[in-house]
């Protein structure tokens, strides 16, 4: 038996304990799962505002005279389209076979400076890969920072109540833009819930005060469980569940991020991606009976078999939903069935997202 690895703690660990969080191990970190009811936390984000500790994710600063050229080779989306400083872009990073190594957000900070946010489980592997394949750029992981996500229709007002001094700089932010504030604070108008909101990186020592002030200002503390139901309703993939190295962006509902516009840009995985037949796609699934779909459950469609990559009960819609990898010919609104504990239950294929800005997408 191998000894259990020591789980890392975020700068907010004590704050979570003080609020009675149920903690769970996630990607080597001790993270809050919920603070009592994950469904109530979910509704808080859809209806008002919620705050998440996402400090397990890894911010990375990219610098060096050729960082742009390096990132244009490393990422399937093209950082050259970031022409206004502060603009962010979502991208996949591929291996030579076109399989997904990670999905990430990159922000151009001006000049040759970029800020990346990587998934926690893949961060170390990503860093090794980027350093090997783009040696002309410098990659500095910022484990000195804490990361908070403040999400929901009332997120902006909540932030300004808690930090009035930040209002001017953050009020001006359009979606998918970020601003550097005084004191090493970095605020971006991004998220992983399908709602408006901010993601905030700040020095670890200042995180507990901001966390408590945001809750005091009306944000509900939310755990990873609500984060998962929110992102699933929003049709946003979770790396490791809905995508991995054996899957291309086209098979993970993120083909729209692959930028082939510049024929001279030979990003890693491009050749393989362009030569590979597209046999599978990721679509939504609504289960029409009373059971929650779980990853790896089998799905039957008129075009052949597929499988659930992640599933849950949608608190907003009140029905079970899933993301499923299905044959390329499958289409939204078609009937399907899903195997749950030995029984085939009725389901319907759905387009993504299920929910956007608090409302059902039909």
């Amino acid at each position, binding site marked *: 038996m191998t000894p*259990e690895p020591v789980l890392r703690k975020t700068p907010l660990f004590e704050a979570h304990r003080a609020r009675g969080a*149920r903690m769970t191990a996630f990607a080597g970190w001790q993270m809050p*799962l*919920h603070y009592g*009811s*994950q*469904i109530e936390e979910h509704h808080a984000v859809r209806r008002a505002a919620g705050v998440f500790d996402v400090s397990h994710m890894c911010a990375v600063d990219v610098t060096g005279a050729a960082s742009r050229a390096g990132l244009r080779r490393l990422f399937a989306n093209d950082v050259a389209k970031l022409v206004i400083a502060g603009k962010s872009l979502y991208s996949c990073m591929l291996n030579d076979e076109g399989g997904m190594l990670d999905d990430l957000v990159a922000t151009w900070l001006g000049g040759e400076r970029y800020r990346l946010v990587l998934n926690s489980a893949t961060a170390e592997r990503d860093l090794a890969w980027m350093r090997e394949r783009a040696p002309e750029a410098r990659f500095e992981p910022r484990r000195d920072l804490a990361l908070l996500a403040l999400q929901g229709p009332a997120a902006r007002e909540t932030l300004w109540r808690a930090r009035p001094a930040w209002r001017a700089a953050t009020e001006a932010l359009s979606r998918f833009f970020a601003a550097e504030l005084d004191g090493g604070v970095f605020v971006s108008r991004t998220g992983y819930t399908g709602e408006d909101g901010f993601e905030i990186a700040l020095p670890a020592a200042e995180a507990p005060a901001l966390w408590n002030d945001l809750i005091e200002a009306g944000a509900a503390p939310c755990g990873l*469980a609500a984060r998962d*139901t929110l992102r699933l309703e929003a049709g946003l993939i979770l790396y490791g569940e809905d995508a991995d190295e054996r899957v291309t962006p086209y098979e993970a509902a993120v083909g729209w991020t692959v930028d082939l516009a510049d024929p001279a840009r030979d990003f890693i995985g491009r050749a393989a991606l362009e030569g590979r037949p597209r046999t599978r796609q990721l679509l939504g699934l609504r289960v029409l009976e*009373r*059971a*929650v779909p*779980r990853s790896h459950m089998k799905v039957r469609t008129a075009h052949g078999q597929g499988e659930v990559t992640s599933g*849950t*009960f949608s*608190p907003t819609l009140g029905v*079970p939903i899933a993301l499923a990898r299905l044959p390329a010919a499958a289409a939204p609104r078609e009937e399907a069935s899903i195997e749950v*504990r030995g029984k085939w239950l009725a389901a319907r294929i759905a387009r993504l997202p299920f929910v956007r800005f608090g409302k059902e997408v039909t």
Partner: protein
Amino acid sequence: MNVPENLRYTATHEWVREEGDMLVVGITDPAQEMLGDLVFVGDVQVGRRVGAGEVAAVVESVKAAADVYAPTAGEIVAFNEELGSKPELINRGPYEAWIFKLKPAQPPQGLLDAAAYRAAVEAKKEAP
């Protein structure tokens, strides 16, 4: 951990209360706590005969599905229909929100009292 003295328990986290010649069965507070928010309660077939330890109901949370076992052999005589539309009642009050009633064919064997069940839950928490 809320484990009332006046009930009896199984090692699989059911609580059992005698009501006339019937056994009323639900899941315990530690069980609902482990499962988190419940979204479905069902698969109870009134009139079905079950053996001791056989699956009599299924509860499902956002996180996981769990079987609920018959504490002894007998006939399922009632299902708490209210849970069909309000599974969250189990989270709010696990000892009020009974799931099914069983007419036992024989008295249940080996049920735990509150202290023994509490000890069993603690032992499981400490196990690696």
